[in-house]
């Protein structure tokens, strides 16, 4: 149905795609995987008309197309669901679905027709919970995504739907709903190109998998005949061997650097935690169990209101991040771009963010160079704006920023989210080295294998408190058993 043949594309003389070919059958879910920078998004943007290819052809249902604008691709039947939604939050569902194609009657926009047609499209997808006249901002993220899909379907007789990391913004229970929606779309004969970092999704959904690396196609595999290991090997181009660095020796674990006793706030209760020098503590838990609340409380961003806390032996219950930082606590947040970095500033300025804020503007620039080397940053110099770095290197800048402040306790919230496989291992190694240097480390992660692989012990949370603790090497089942032992239900399901 769709064939992309020998597509190449360069930006400013840098070749991003080297003659990539891809085909798609009707009703097929075809996964596209590869590390960050492998060229997945560029390839899809070429397909959707956002970039014009330098070489190569796109053939859809026997017609050769050369798109110069997304609208042409849409008209030809290619819809693209962006990672960041292209919706207007303050406009209604119907207004968004028909944006740019509003039906007109006697010179005026025919709202009724617009809303009726939107309701029909939603009904075709069994999405009856969305009213066409609701403002998009009042919908949950999952429903906004549905609106985005409906918008693509309304644009034309869609033959190909490209989905770029569609599950990234979704909560767990919403992912299932998206799966169901994708299967319904495929059943209607729509071919789906599915970009994802998460191999589990790829294996759940796809019929075939195309692997890209450094702008080239490595292989197209039939999902049923391959394994996750094969795919990872193709993505990385090498065996990853052991993913995780060795754990700490009992002898390496030192004195407590952070303790809490009976600590709590409106979301947490009875938090008795001890983080020791040289030890990596993992925190697991279901949705709404309070894991993020815990790190935010330790960092003073959403402070504890009860109980006591000490850092490096001194009482310190931070009322705000500044106090926590001065006390020697650092938090690498999950939202790297929003909370971790000033994207348009240089690597150096970002690395100095914390020291400048807390210790004044004094010129530790020299020290920063050493730190950036320490975290093994790969950039085109320290004057480069961080927005141009890969996710993994951005994360290294965030870590360097904290190291510059000389912390004793490092809190990581989803340390490798949005980081490609190769860089993940580098960050894991770095985290372990920092623990070995005598810092106390706490990791929150929704990837259980990562948590198990990295942690010297795992604390399991449920219902805003600790449900239990497991030693190194505990299995996923043990964690799940503790996490689900109480009658805590995922709060997110109300969303």
């Amino acid at each position, binding site marked *: 149905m769709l064939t992309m043949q020998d597509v190449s594309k360069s930006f400013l003389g840098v070749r991003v795609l080297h003659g990539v070919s891809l085909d798609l059958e009707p009703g097929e879910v075809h996964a596209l995987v590869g590390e960050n920078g492998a060229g997945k998004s560029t390839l899809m943007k070429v397909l959707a008309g*956002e970039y014009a290819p330098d070489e190569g052809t796109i053939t859809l249902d026997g017609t050769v197309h050369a798109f110069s604008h997304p609208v042409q691709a849409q008209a030809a039947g290619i819809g693209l669901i962006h990672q960041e939604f292209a919706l*207007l939050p*303050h406009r209604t569902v119907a207004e968004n679905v028909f944006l*740019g194609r509003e039906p007109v009657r006697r010179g005026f926009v025919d709202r*009724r027709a617009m*809303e009726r047609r939107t309701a029909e499209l939603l009904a075709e997808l069994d999405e009856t919970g969305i009213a066409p006249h609701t403002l998009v901002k009042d919908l949950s993220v999952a429903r906004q995504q549905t609106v985005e899909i409906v918008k693509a379907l309304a644009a034309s007789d869609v033959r190909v739907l490209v989905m770029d990391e569609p599950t990234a913004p979704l909560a*767990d229970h919403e992912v299932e709903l998206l799966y169901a929606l994708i299967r319904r779309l495929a059943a209607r004969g729509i071919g789906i190109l599915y970009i994802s970092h998460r191999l589990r999704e790829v294996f759940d959904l796809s019929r075939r998998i195309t692997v890209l690396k450094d702008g080239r196609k490595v292989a197209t595999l039939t999902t049923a005949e391959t394994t996750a290991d094969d795919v990872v090997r193709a993505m990385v181009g090498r065996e990853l061997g052991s993913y995780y660095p060795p754990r700490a020796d009992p002898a390496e674990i030192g004195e407590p650097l952070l303790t809490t006793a009976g600590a709590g706030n409106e979301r947490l209760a009875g938090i008795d935690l001890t983080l020791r020098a040289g030890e990596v503590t993992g925190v697991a838990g279901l949705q709404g169990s309070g894991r993020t609340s815990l790190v935010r409380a330790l960092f003073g961003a959403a402070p504890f209101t009860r109980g006591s806390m000490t850092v490096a032996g001194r009482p310190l219950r931070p009322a705000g991040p500044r106090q926590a930082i001065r006390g020697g606590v650092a938090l690498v947040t999950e939202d790297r771009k929003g909370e971790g970095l000033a994207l348009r500033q240089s690597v150096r300025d970002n690395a100095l963010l914390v020291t400048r804020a807390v210790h004044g503007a004094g010129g530790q620039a020299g020290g920063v160079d050493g730190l950036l080397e320490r975290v093994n940053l790969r950039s085109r110099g320290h004057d480069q704006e961080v927005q141009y770095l890969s996710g993994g290197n951005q994360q290294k800048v965030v870590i360097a920023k904290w190291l510059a402040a000389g912390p004793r306790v490092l809190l990581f919230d989803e340390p490798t989210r949005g980081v490609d496989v190769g860089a993940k291992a580098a960050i894991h190694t770095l985290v372990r080295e920092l623990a070995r240097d005598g810092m106390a480390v706490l990791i929150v992660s929704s*990837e259980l294998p990562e948590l198990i692989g990295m942690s010297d012990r795992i604390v399991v949370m449920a219902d805003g408190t600790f449900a239990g603790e497991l030693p190194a090497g505990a299995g996923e089942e043990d964690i799940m058993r503790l996490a689900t032992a109480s009658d805590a239900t995922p709060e*997110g399901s109300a969303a």
Partner: protein
Amino acid sequence: MTAVRTEAPVSAAPRRLPGAGRLKVTDPVVGVWLAAAAVTLIGWIVVTIDGGQFMTQSNFTGILQNSVALGLVAVGQSAVILTGSLDLSVAYLISLGTLVAAETMEGGSVVTAVLAVLALSAAVGLANGLIVTGLKVNAFIATLGMAFILRGYIEDNYTGPAGDVPASFQRLGYDRVGFIPVSVFLLIAVAAVLWLITKRTRLGHHMYATGGDEHAARLSGVRTRRTVIYAHVLCALCVGAAALFLASRLGAGAPWAGTEARYDLDSIAAVVLGGTALAGGRGGVAGTLGGVLLLSVLDSIFNQLSVDPFFKNVVRGVVIIAAVALYARPFRRRAKERDEARAKEKGAVA
């Protein structure tokens, strides 16, 4: 107040009465009209205690009369701000408009003069739009530059009032129907046209979309540049109407007609008071009219109380800041909710 409920959706099912059951005080459009009403009430009480008379016909006529020029400019300004742009050249365009109107009327017909002013306005609006979209100059700078250009031209060619407006055209500024000045009908007509354009036409939908998220709009097939240009032309035409009205009030053209009353910044203040987001994408003409009325009523109260003009400006400033702070509140709450929801969502075990 029926014009206020502009966001009322019309569902596919039995047509709901516009706005039925959807009037929310938190909606800035409703809020600003309520505020205008409240200020009127307070003014009435304060002026009465002060020994004056507020609820008089002549006072109402004055308030309405004073709303017209600012109203026309602000309605136009709403269009550009909605689209995510801005026009700082309006004050000088008004001045030049009154001069062109009065001079053309002196030597020619009223019709020629009206057409000349509107043509001048459209040309300036088009230029603004082209500079913003074509040369990609930030609207603030582009229209500030245009303001300087117009100012230079005016100061080079005029030292004081010029031209002469015939009595027939001055009726626009002075005639009344009952106690309502006819110029108010001009404002209502212009506002109605702008309201229809923004709320009911594709251009209007595209203006909201462009102001809300230009990238998203373009990816949806909206011609965003053209939309911004149209918005600038619409704004300039409204400004032209204001210039014609002021020429008829003044009986001549004046180099200070637009600048003395600071129509540039005051129109932006009225737009923002009316709940239109300065970044664009949200708000509308109905709120702007409320903002204009609120400012006029305030002025009238201060005049009646003979308040020090400096203090007057202090109060205006406080009102504008307070209003915008109030509008920002629900969003702050929402941002917090979003943070919490995000915090919840990411707790999941993979």
